């Protein structure tokens, strides 16, 4: 992969790196045909960030070394994970970057596991940074924004003005909405003494939003610290921030869309366990990886998998189809494997039910399409609240041992690639 970022866009790119740095110490460098995505997930799997730069953003963008491959076949995806500590210094001082650097070339050297950042600066100075990466399949949150009943759109400047009232040490913030009003308030866990901490509340009029749609009254609590990265990025692009959310327990997504850049931060929200009815679904993430056997077995389902955009939120049908599969067992406490009648196709979201008393269940997968789902073991908390973590596509094709008491996420899952090439499957990764 090779791309060139022009001087004027370097600032935006640098800001994206800074924003992602707030989420995690590592991130995936994930180029595809349409552009370059930078993805990151935090250590507790409760926050996901993705900044996607379309090919238009670059002065020059080429996804594969050999031009023919670009057109005909798919290239093997670059499974590249970079450490933030090594990348951040390259883009640390954005002001000097903008002033001195004329363009930045980024190219990958897969054989040697390097990504090279070459900054062409003024006065003929060229700075070359060779950063090693380690192989890792990129993960992405599968979250359908269309399904969210509550949608708010607000100017980034305004959103920053709101969040500024919370002290920098404030970790969690609750947003409470009704069709009449919006309120952002600081959140403190019940264990902490109320009589010690300061509480802040901000009441806003729906007029202040560019777009205000509340389908269901809700109160969701998310981590402000992680959001601040996006806010800083948004301010730089002075874009409108879209907020999509549902009831508590379901993730909240903050996104910015521009002609050339799309940024999206999906954060898990605190679930009120007491008020839970049936299945609570946490955010599901699927791995973007090849899944040849599945593809073979479910070639007929290939059509189900629609063209996956970077944020992959078009799997709504699959979500819906999966639901009936699981609600039945939401209340059950059995350990028997469940067979899903409808086979999974590529990019399917596996709803993961987290319930207090459900034990970890691991299901074996066979060619017929059983899905191996790994559920989280929840020790009984005296604390009523817990954060739902974003689960990664816990789908595996191999038989796996039952592993209890651990949070399982990754299993080798198939790619969520654009075109399904049924006849010619590249080798299994």
């Amino acid at each position, binding site marked *: 992969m090779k791309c060139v970022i022009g001087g004027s866009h370097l600032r935006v790119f640098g800001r994206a790196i800074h924003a992602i740095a707030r989420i995690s110490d590592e991130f995936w460098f994930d180029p595809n045909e349409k552009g370059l995505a930078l993805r990151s997930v935090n250590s507790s799997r409760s926050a996901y960030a993705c900044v996607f730069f379309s090919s238009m953003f670059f002065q020059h963008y080429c996804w594969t070394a050999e031009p023919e491959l670009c057109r005909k076949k798919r290239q093997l995806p670059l499974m590249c994970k970079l450490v933030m500590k090594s990348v951040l210094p390259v883009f640390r001082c954005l002001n000097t970057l903008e002033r001195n650097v004329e363009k930045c070339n980024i190219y990958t050297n897969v054989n040697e596991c390097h990504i090279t950042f070459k900054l062409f600066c003024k006065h003929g100075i060229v700075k070359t940074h060779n950063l090693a990466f380690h192989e890792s399949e990129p993960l992405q949150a599968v979250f359908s924004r269309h399904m969210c009943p509550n949608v708010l759109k607000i100017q980034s400047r*305004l959103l920053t003005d*709101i969040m*500024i*009232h919370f*002290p920098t040490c404030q970790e969690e913030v609750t947003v409470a909405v009704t069709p009449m009003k919006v309120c952002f308030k600081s959140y403190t866990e019940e264990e902490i003494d*109320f*009589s*010690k*901490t*300061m*509480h*802040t*509340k*901000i*009441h*806003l*009029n729906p*007029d*202040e939003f560019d777009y205000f749609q509340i389908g269901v009254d809700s109160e969701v609590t998310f981590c402000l610290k992680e959001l601040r990265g996006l806010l800083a990025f948004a301010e730089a692009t002075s874009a409108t921030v879209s907020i999509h959310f549902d009831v508590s327990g379901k993730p909240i997504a903050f996104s910015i869309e521009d002609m050339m850049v799309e940024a999206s931060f999906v954060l898990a929200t605190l679930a009120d366990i007491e008020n839970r009815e049936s299945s609570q679904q946490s955010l599901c993430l699927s791995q973007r990886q090849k899944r040849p056997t599945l593809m073979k077995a479910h070639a007929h389902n290939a059509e189900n998998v629609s063209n996956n955009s970077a944020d992959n939120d078009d799997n709504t049908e699959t979500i819906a189809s999966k639901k009936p599969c699981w609600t039945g067992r939401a209340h059950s406490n059995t350990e028997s494997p469940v067979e899903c009648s409808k086979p999974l196709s590529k990019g399917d979201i596996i709803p993961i039910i987290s319930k207090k008393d459900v034990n970890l269940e691991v299901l074996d997968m066979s060619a017929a399409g059983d899905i191996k789902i790994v559920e989280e073991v929840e020790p009984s908390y005296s604390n009523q609240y817990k954060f739902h973590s974003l689960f990664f596509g816990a789908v595996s094709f191999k038989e796996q041992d039952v592993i209890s008491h651990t949070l399982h996420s990754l299993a080798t899952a198939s790619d969520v690639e654009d075109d399904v090439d049924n006849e010619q499957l590249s080798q299994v990764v």
Partner: protein
Amino acid sequence: MRFRAKIVDVACLNHFTRVINTIAKLAKTCTLRLTVDKLYFILTDKVANGGVSMWCELSQGNFFDEFQMEGVAAEHNEIYLELTPENLSRALKTAQNAKTVKIKLTNKHCPCLTVAVELPSLSTSSRIVTHDIPVGVIPRRLWNDFREPSVPDFDVSIYLPVLKTMKSVVERMKNLSNCIVLEANLNGEMNLKIETDLVSVTTHFKGLGNPPWVSEDGSQSSTQDRDPESMAEARIDIRKLLQLLAGQQVNPTKALCNIVSKRIVHFILLHEEVSLQYFIPALA
């Protein structure tokens, strides 16, 4: 017990915020005493505070447009609250362009000082930000602990040099030693000294002037008999001194200190609307 106050003027809000910021730098928790005319921020000289004490007085009329207070009882028309000034400082920090700021005593799961900031917004109604700052109500039987400290029987009283200059001198000295000797005489001379095994540094200030004090009975103060050249000195913790100099945002019109030799240094920062007294005890 009721308390409601409102600030509408931007300059007053600014000034009030600066006073609160100064208090926040000097004390982690302190006592707020409310009377009909004044607000007091008090820090008593308990061991927990390192022996320093503070007394800050504001005339409410200079800051608040509206001020209503009802004390615990008719004969004791005052309210004493224990609060963390840092919280108040934080609440006011982002309120600087507010239309109004209301402060009231409320009881939400615990007694709170609620700061309600009305901010201008693009929409028809203003944006309202409320901060609930938990406070502790101090019962009347403990009020005696918070009496105004009397001016000590000092040996020398002298005007301080320009606070900024004094601050930068003390800041540099802080790296060399934990204690600083502050000495002054009635000739308007002040020295700041540090002394360690390796180095001793002294900064001399001259021509500072000595404020005239008249004792209560009208007779000349005892300092008249003192040799004008003789220095009164006290060895104090340098960090406490720096806390005062670095934190202050009051920009006093008059700044002076009274030194009781080897006992205590009493700093007074005066402003038309605010007066701040700070006591630092001498180290053994």
